[in-house]
């Protein structure tokens, strides 16, 4: 009998129950609480197969205490029983008919090995091993417990039985702490010690999930016929739940431990130098479009540094696969799910260099850093309200003249109407959108009279290609309608994504 309360040495007289006269203040309190419980109810519950800690939970008036954690079940039992040795000692192999072994610190692990712990700290040590297997770095954690629903039914049944026998007793009227919350109370402090971490509602969650071993581990809950009988009995005014309604439980629950870290975010700006790289992973009919994606080129480098499960890419706007992103770059966020560690700024700088020095030079990154909850505000800044700047190479059907350059440059805050472009009409609403071209600037290209370089600054959401070629007349005015001839766009680059003051 693992008896936590015997001191190693001391001047105290041992009593027959293993209690010492001075000694541990906590266990003394528990002992006194145990002795104060309604002995009839205690005896009934113990013989039914309810475990010691559940007895405390259901019969005690005082709040369920973490002190119970350090007293072993067998010691508790001896304190609860009035000293008669005849009270049937709990068959070692049976579990509590209410909590199915949860509060007895008994469970099966993934390999179906049965594990017992005598006290909270031993249980905490086992849980700590399982947590460490997941590999997270953390200094604080939140604890979540989930137990099978039948435990609640078991408890209802047992309480009903108690009400049948001890209806008017005051201790029965008080609110009983649930098995879930009771477990948390018992193991939180030992876990804090064993993990070496604080507890708070933090970004790192440890979830203890108990699940039924099999359908037979029902515990105290009634069969359907009994439930129907009980309901009709209640209607008739008679309530009774006999001792025979409860079956023994032999199989404890299976415990699995899962750890989850809330997503962490990294921000930066990206450049896209290739006309064959999409912004996000783009697959049609099992075939990839383009040779790579910005999302993957950046995400696949950050994910391993975080030892995360997966990542999501968010960008402030987007550009087509054949449009380069130059100038000051486009703001983006990488969100990493369930990271095991947070890379240092040094590692992030190294990742940035690795991407920028890569042989193919498809994509570039700058200002890569860890970012906290202000990340979404930063993203919103780059979105709808902001202006975007582009450079396009334009061809027209007749030679470019000086008056063309003047007429284009003189247009300020030009309002255009764009019907949903044909190339996206299959997936967007057919609407007419009004947009503004803030300014334009033309540069001739040497040796070519039909081509020119067009710089333009437009409202966010403007379709530039359609503004140049007119989209069958569905964007008006267009470059072609302004110059009075057919116009085509040869290439497009984004040269600036304005972000306020950054």
């Amino acid at each position, binding site marked *: 009998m693992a008896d936590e309360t015997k001191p190693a040495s001391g001047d105290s007289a041992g009593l027959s129950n293993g209690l010492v006269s001075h000694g541990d203040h906590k266990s003394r309190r528990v002992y006194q609480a145990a002795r104060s419980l309604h002995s009839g109810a205690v005896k009934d519950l113990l013989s039914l197969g309810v475990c010691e800690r559940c007895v405390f939970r259901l019969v005690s008036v005082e709040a369920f205490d973490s002190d119970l954690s350090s007293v072993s079940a067998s010691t508790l039992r001896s304190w609860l029983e009035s000293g008669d040795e005849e009270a049937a000692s709990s068959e070692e192999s049976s579990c509590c008919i209410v909590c199915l072994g949860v509060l007895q610190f008994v469970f099966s692990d993934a390999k179906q090995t049965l594990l017992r712990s005598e006290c909270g700290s031993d249980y905490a040590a086992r849980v700590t091993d399982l947590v460490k297997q997941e590999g997270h770095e953390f200094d604080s954690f939140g604890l979540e417990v989930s137990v099978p629903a039948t435990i609640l039914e078991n408890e209802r049944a047992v309480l009903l039985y108690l009400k049948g026998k001890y209806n008017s007793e005051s201790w029965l009227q008080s609110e009983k702490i649930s098995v879930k919350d009771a477990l948390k109370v018992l193991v939180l402090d030992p876990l804090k010690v064993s993990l070496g971490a604080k507890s708070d509602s933090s970004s790192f969650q440890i979830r203890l999930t108990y699940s039924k071993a099999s359908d037979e581990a029902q515990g105290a809950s009634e069969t359907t016929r009994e439930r129907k009988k009980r309901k009709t009995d209640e209607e008739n005014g008679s309530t009774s739940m006999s001792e025979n309604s409860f079956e023994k439980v032999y199989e404890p629950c299976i415990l699995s431990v899962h750890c989850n870290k809330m997503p962490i975010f990294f921000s930066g700006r990206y450049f896209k130098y290739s*006309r064959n790289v999409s912004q996000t992973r783009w697959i049609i009919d099992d075939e990839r479009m383009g040779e790579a994606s910005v999302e993957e080129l950046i995400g696949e480098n950050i994910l391993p540094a975080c030892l995360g499960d997966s990542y999501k890419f968010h960008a402030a706007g987007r550009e087509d696969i054949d449009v380069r992103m*130059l*100038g000051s770059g486009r703001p983006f966020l990488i969100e990493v799910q369930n990271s095991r560690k947070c890379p240092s700024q040094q590692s992030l700088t190294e990742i940035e260099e690795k991407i920028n020095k890569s042989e193919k030079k498809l994509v570039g990154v700058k200002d890569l850093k860890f970012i906290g909850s202000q990340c979404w505000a930063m993203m919103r800044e780059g979105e709808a309200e902001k202006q975007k700047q582009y*450079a396009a*190479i334009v*061809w027209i059907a007749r030679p470019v003249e*000086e008056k063309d*350059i*003047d007429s284009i*440059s003189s247009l300020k805050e030009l309002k255009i109407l764009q*019907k949903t472009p*044909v*190339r*996206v*009409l*299959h*997936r*967007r*609403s*057919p609407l007419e959108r009004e947009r503004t071209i803030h*300014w334009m*600037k*033309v*540069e*001739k*290209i*040497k*040796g*070519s009279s*039909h*081509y020119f*370089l067009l710089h333009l600054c437009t409202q966010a959401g403007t379709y530039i*290609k359609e503004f140049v*070629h*007119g*989209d*069958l*007349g569905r964007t008006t005015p267009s470059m072609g309608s302004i110059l009075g001839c*057919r116009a*085509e*766009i*040869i*290439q497009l*680059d984004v*040269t600036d994504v304005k972000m306020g003051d950054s």
Partner: protein
Amino acid sequence: MEETQNIDVTKNPEGEDAIESTKQKQPEEVEHHCDEQQKQSQCEEDELRKLLLSDIGELPLSPPSAIQVNFVSYFITGFTKPGHDQYIYRHANGLCVIGLAPTHIAFKDQGGITNIDFNVGKSDRSVLKVSGKRKKNAMRSESNTALCKVSTANDSYIVRCCVKGSLLEVNERLIKQPQLLNSSADREGYIAIIMPRPADWTKNKESLITLEEYKEKKQDILLEPCLL
């Protein structure tokens, strides 16, 4: 090979002025009077300019049009009646732009097309209101459903969908500007946009001919100077 690396802006004083003057109108630049910073931003601009022109390669005299690049052209000739030739430009996303092919007999009439009326069949096609991503309220059409009637001085001709699908849009600009049909039937003078289901398109495609086949079939008409 066209000179692509050097935009010779400085040789064109007016051009340079044009750039300088628009630069001053940009509010951010006005605030920085420091010489150093101006030099630096000029340097960055030059870098950017080089980059912008870095990979255009050869600039052809006449590049392919947006339609040629983004659509596959199909034709149907003599649809329900001789001389009723139409084009179907199919985009990679499945949408089909329908219009009059250059050999349509309406163009032969003196004065060309003078009027267009979308009120044919059971409803006026120009008042349909398609909304939302799912294209609610789009009229479901068969290939021989009438789209509109075009009239010339002599005669009028029915234009049909040629493609089974949902009618997303008709070009209502044609009502006020029917001459677009005469000047650019293959672009601004398009008639309608239809969205066929993939299965319907596969079947439909069999009755259409390619651009090459069309040119061959109609070569005698197409070689007349007033067309193509």
